């Protein structure tokens, strides 16, 4: 017989000395956030400076400082340039930053809520739902809530689409990537078809072109009056999600495990779905459906700060803002004087990213998992 007590326990402990693959340092978060903030300021400056009329960065800062009342010295630039920077470019750049941040945050939350790394408002058909809602208001001209009708309808459409995709993708308490993506694609296809049908049958021909351009996602033609609502939605979204960051983390452990750690999963998910739809609806109403920002940003950011939502959310917000500001700069300069819808550009980056992510997950699935 072999008495088990004589085992020497030393060997296995030494075998554990593998190099850590990645250690998210506690100091890394403030540094990353600082770097991203600086990057965002630089990007916004670039967004204000670059265009058909180039304004030097120094002059941009002068104009902004003057407008903010920081710098009271007499201006040494023309009124026309001031108008270009403050009234034409600034709202557009800010909407880009707000939309990028909002979409990234919403994507982060969705990936945790449906426990799937491929989740994103655009791919899940949430943006299509929002578009349909908004276009229905435009075409039928119903305005129950006055100026808020458009975002309200977009919110309703987004929530409806999200619930539909979630219900069809879920079988036996589990959502596989394949079913999720297929449900998203199918729902988005139906909603887009309905949207096209609405546009083709409407007799307001001159508006159709404008609406069509909007459905590709674009930041053109924004004025200051359109900014407050997306800004508010972004603050609400980030605020609530940051407060709920620990609970979002719990969802990563699985639904049963999250329950055993004190989370009422069904109720929490329902509330977060409403929040996510609200933010998506408002952003889509303002900027059209812009895809893949919400997919890419959380994953890129996780490479630097790890997966804890208390770190991912703020970093993804800043990253999304930077990304969309630059995407918009590209959209209006690459084919100038023609303007490319920014959604086309984000899809150009995001599509390949999506494929890479899918292949990476397939690799992980085959090498990891229970033996």
């Amino acid at each position: 017989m072999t008495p088990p007590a004589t085992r020497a326990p030393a060997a296995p402990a030494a075998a554990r000395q593998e190099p850590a693959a990645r250690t998210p340092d506690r100091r890394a978060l403030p540094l990353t956030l600082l770097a991203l903030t600086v990057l965002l300021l630089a990007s916004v400056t670039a967004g204000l400076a670059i265009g058909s009329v180039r304004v030097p960065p120094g002059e941009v800062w002068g104009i902004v400082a003057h407008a903010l009342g920081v710098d009271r010295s007499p201006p040494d630039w023309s009124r026309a340039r001031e108008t270009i920077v403050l009234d034409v470019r600034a709202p557009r750049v800010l909407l880009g930053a707000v939309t990028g941040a909002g979409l990234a945050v919403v994507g982060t939350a969705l990936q945790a809520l449906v426990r799937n790394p491929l989740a994103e408002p655009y791919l899940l058909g949430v943006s299509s739902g929002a578009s349909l809602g908004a276009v229905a208001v435009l075409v039928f001209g119903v305005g129950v809530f006055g100026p808020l009708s458009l975002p309200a309808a977009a919110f309703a459409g987004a929530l409806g689409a999200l619930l539909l995709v979630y219900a069809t993708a879920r079988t036996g308490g589990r959502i596989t990537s394949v079913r999720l993506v297929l449900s998203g694609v199918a729902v988005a296809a139906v909603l887009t078809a309905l949207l096209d049908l609405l546009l083709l049958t409407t007799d307001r021909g001159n508006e159709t072109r404008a609406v069509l351009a909007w459905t590709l996602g674009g930041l053109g033609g924004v004025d200051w009056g359109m900014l407050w609502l997306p800004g508010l939605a972004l603050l609400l979204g980030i605020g609530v999600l940051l407060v709920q960051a620990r609970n979002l983390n719990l969802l990563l452990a699985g639904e049963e495990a999250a329950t055993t750690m004190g989370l009422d999963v069904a109720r929490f998910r329902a509330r977060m779905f409403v929040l996510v739809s609200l933010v998506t609806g408002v952003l889509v109403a303002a900027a059209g459906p812009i895809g893949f920002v919400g997919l890419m940003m959380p994953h890129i950011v996780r490479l630097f700060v790890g997966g804890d939502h208390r770190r991912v959310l703020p970093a993804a917000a800043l990253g999304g803002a930077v990304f969309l500001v630059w995407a918009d700069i590209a959209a209006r300069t690459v084919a100038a004087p023609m303007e490319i819808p920014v959604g086309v550009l984000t899809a150009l980056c995001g599509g390949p990213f999506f494929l890479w992510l899918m292949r990476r997950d397939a690799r992980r699935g085959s090498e990891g998992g229970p033996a």
Partner: protein
Amino acid sequence: MSAAELVVDRVTLTAGARRLVADVSLTARPGEVIGLVGPNGSGKSSLLRAVYRVLRPDTGRVRVDGADAWSLPVRRLARTVAAVVQESGADLDLTAREVVAMGRTPHKRLLAGDTAEDAELIGAALDAVDGAGLADRPFDRLSGGERQRVLIARALAQQPALLVLDEPTNHLDIRHQLDVLGALRRLPATVLVALHDLNLAASYCDRLYVLCDGEVTACGPPAEVLTPRLLAEVYGVDAEVAVHPRTGAPQVTFLPGRPGTDAAPDLPAGRAVASAEPGGVGGLGLGR
């Protein structure tokens, strides 16, 4: 942290028309380690689910220290009851330490940061499963056994008065099986653990409950419960039981073939054990 008393009082669980557990009662006194054994599909996991508040009983009650587990707020219960479940999470780049840190959630206010006390508890929980070396590694790159140990550490970090574990030794090599069960024994908490390995159950549990077809077939100290007759009846296997000279625990040796080698189905208690329980036939269900 102290140990809680668990009383499962005549619980019946169903999934649609299927009956999972029928009229099961179970008691764990404070500090006891209770083993739940039985063939695959006998209702072990379902019963545990009712205790950690995922599967609501159709009838009967689950009481923890006298309070109905199903009428407490989820968060309140999570401060008393922790669980290691058979479910894998999503792959979203958390380190092992961050996974263990989740266990602190029910004790934290939503915006509160992790304190030095939390860090200490997390470190101690990792040490208890020999997991200090895993702390900074990405959870989704760990092996099955390493993950399992991290999940046990997460439950320990929750500082439970009652710890429920669904086959925690799955995927573990023998050394870590012994380590983990030893760590459970040393906990000040009450432990309810479903186990496949009868010899481990016999060595580490104060009392065993044997489930078969969703009913309790036997309960009591391992030496009283693990008899050749019961093993034949519940698992449909031929086995010898001896007392181990060093540990004093009953030791089960499985013998090839089925009880009553003529393959005649008239088994001792006359219950259609082997045929009604495909997972429990022979030794096939044991190792998976």
